[in-house]
């Protein structure tokens, strides 16, 4: 019997010939991601760190991104604790505010390499499945224990195989595809399971794969992973990673899957996730005309160059409606600079967009772009939970960047395909 991606990686990382779903294995992850929560994590083990130090200094990757620049004295003190910890423990992979959102940074800086095992104290750690990484979320306490011991336990998951056919049509994005899948299988449809994407993956860019893998946790998945093909190798080469630095892993042809699904990408239409669950999927056409108070393009889900380019192609020479406001949130400084150099940010700004520093800002409701009671936000982020953007009496709708850009022009939910033909 062949093996799935998850079975192969977890066997290799636990030093066993083979593992089976349900089995618990002890693993030493290649990397542990923490962000602004680093200060709370190290606070739990202050005395232990004095005595034992960090088990493997190469393992932690710290990215300050959640509340940047600091919104208050308390946030500033948190950042300082993280900086001092990284310096004292001589951690080589520390990224201060402004570099970007942790998930984008791990990709860009070459920490997320095919075949690696990465855990992170952020649920969207599953994003690196875009380049064949076994990456998944843990909590703060587990991160603290990992700092000290360098190892943890994982249960070998069952795997769902999703085969993609064809190609997305103009105006339809990878976000529409993944939201459609989540709507079909439900917010717990892949709970405790791995999700592998097969088929015409070549028709999706690395950026599009990132969007899809990022949303894996919104279907409950432990990991959501793509094969490493020419596009993935080209992306890694573009950020300076030598092909000898990694060994791709992929499932065998005869691997066992608990469930198999297939999607015709040509048939996908623009959709939105309506409040307050990510699986509450409606076609844009069903809700068209809905008044929107705030539009957000960006975050770790859709804050990459192609997302802003798509938005700019719709917003060029146009203005954001006076009845709404548009926030633009690049996922990293590199993306910010490239979008600036290519004139994309100028287009979005001239249209009336407010460009925010590369970070998490409005997505978790801690600062920047919080909502008022009764307001509706149309966002490219990954969650529309009640209270998520700082107000429990507000509503969040999720969509792809094209839909958000088209809707910003009218202040109402708009099918982007209409705006593209004008």
């Amino acid at each position, binding site marked *: 019997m062949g093996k799935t991606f998850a079975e192969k990686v977890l066997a290799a990382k636990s030093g066993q010939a083979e593992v089976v779903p349900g089995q618990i294995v002890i693993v030493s992850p290649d990397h542990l991601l923490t962000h602004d929560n680093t200060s709370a994590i190290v606070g739990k083990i202050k005395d232990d760190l004095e005595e034992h130090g960090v088990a493997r200094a190469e393992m932690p990757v710290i990215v300050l991104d959640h509340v940047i620049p600091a919104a208050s004295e308390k946030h500033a003190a948190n950042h300082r604790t993280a900086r001092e910890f990284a310096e004292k423990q001589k951690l080589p992979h520390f990224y201060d505010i402004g570099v970007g959102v942790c998930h984008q940074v791990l990709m860009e800086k070459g920490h997320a390499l095919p075949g690696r095992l990465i855990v992170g104290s952020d649920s969207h750690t599953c994003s690196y499945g875009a380049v064949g990484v076994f990456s998944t979320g843990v909590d703060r306490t*587990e991160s603290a224990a990992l700092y000290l011991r360098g190892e943890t336990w994982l249960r070998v998951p069952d795997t769902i195989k999703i085969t993609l056919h064809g190609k997305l049509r103009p105006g339809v994005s990878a976000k529409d595809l993944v939201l459609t899948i989540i709507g079909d299988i439900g917010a717990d449809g892949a709970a405790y399971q791995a999700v592998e994407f097969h088929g015409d993956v070549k028709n999706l860019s690395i950026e599009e794969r990132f969007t899809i893998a990022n949303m894996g946790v919104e279907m*409950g998945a432990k990991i959501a992973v793509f094969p490493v093909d020419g596009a993935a190798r080209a992306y890694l080469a573009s950020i300076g990673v030598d092909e000898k630095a990694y060994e791709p892993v992929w499932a065998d042809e005869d691997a066992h899957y608990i469930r198999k699904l297939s999607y015709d990408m040509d048939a996908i239409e623009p959709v939105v996730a309506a409040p307050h669950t990510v699986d509450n999927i409606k076609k844009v056409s069903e809700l068209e005309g809905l008044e929107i108070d705030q539009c957000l393009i960006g975050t770790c889900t859709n804050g990459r160059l192609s997302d802003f380019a798509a938005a700019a192609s719709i917003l060029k020479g146009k203005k954001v409606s006076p009845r709404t406001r548009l926030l633009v949130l690049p996922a990293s400084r590199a993306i910010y600079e490239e979008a600036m150099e290519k004139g994309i940010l100028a287009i979005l700004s001239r249209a009336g967009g407010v460009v925010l520093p590369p970070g998490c800002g409005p997505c978790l409701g801690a600062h920047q772009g919080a909502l008022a009671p009764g307001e509706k936000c149309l966002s490219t982020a990954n969650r529309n939970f009640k209270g998520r953007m700082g107000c429990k009496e507000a509503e969040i709708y999720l969509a792809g960047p094209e839909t958000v850009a088209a809707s910003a022009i009218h202040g109402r939910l708009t099918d982007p395909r209409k705006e593209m033909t004008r």
Partner: protein
Amino acid sequence: MTVWKYGDDVNTDMLFPGKYTYTCATAEEIKPHLLEDLDPEFAGKAREGDIIFGGKNFGCGSSREQPTLGLKAVGVRAIVAKSFARIFYRSSINQGLLLVECPEAVDAYKEGDGVELDATAGEIRVGGKAFAFPKLPPEILAIRDAGGLLPYTREMLKKK
């Protein structure tokens, strides 16, 4: 003992709003905000020994352990749900908070029913009817028996 009953997909923002993520770290800071956007009564009235009932996918959402830390500190005896999201599940093990995955017990519960829980036997009684739930594997019970992941890690470091 109070039984608190909620529905499906109770997410981490409902259990503890994201806006407090970087301003509340200790159990005392967390407690007043527990379930703030889901059930404003909970934080003031929850007491030692209470049980929470939930539907499917309980704890979905962020890697946010404030709910488990806070609920454990309040003295919540267990959360009984149809299913749990995985990071929340791990987090509860790490804090030594008992999770019971038992859809039949959740369906059977009606307001006012007495609830008895025997974690060692893996049995929950709801309104006089008994339901079995799967016990944790030994590797994970070892973490709970040590009082949570950090005490367990300290034991392991001593043995090294």
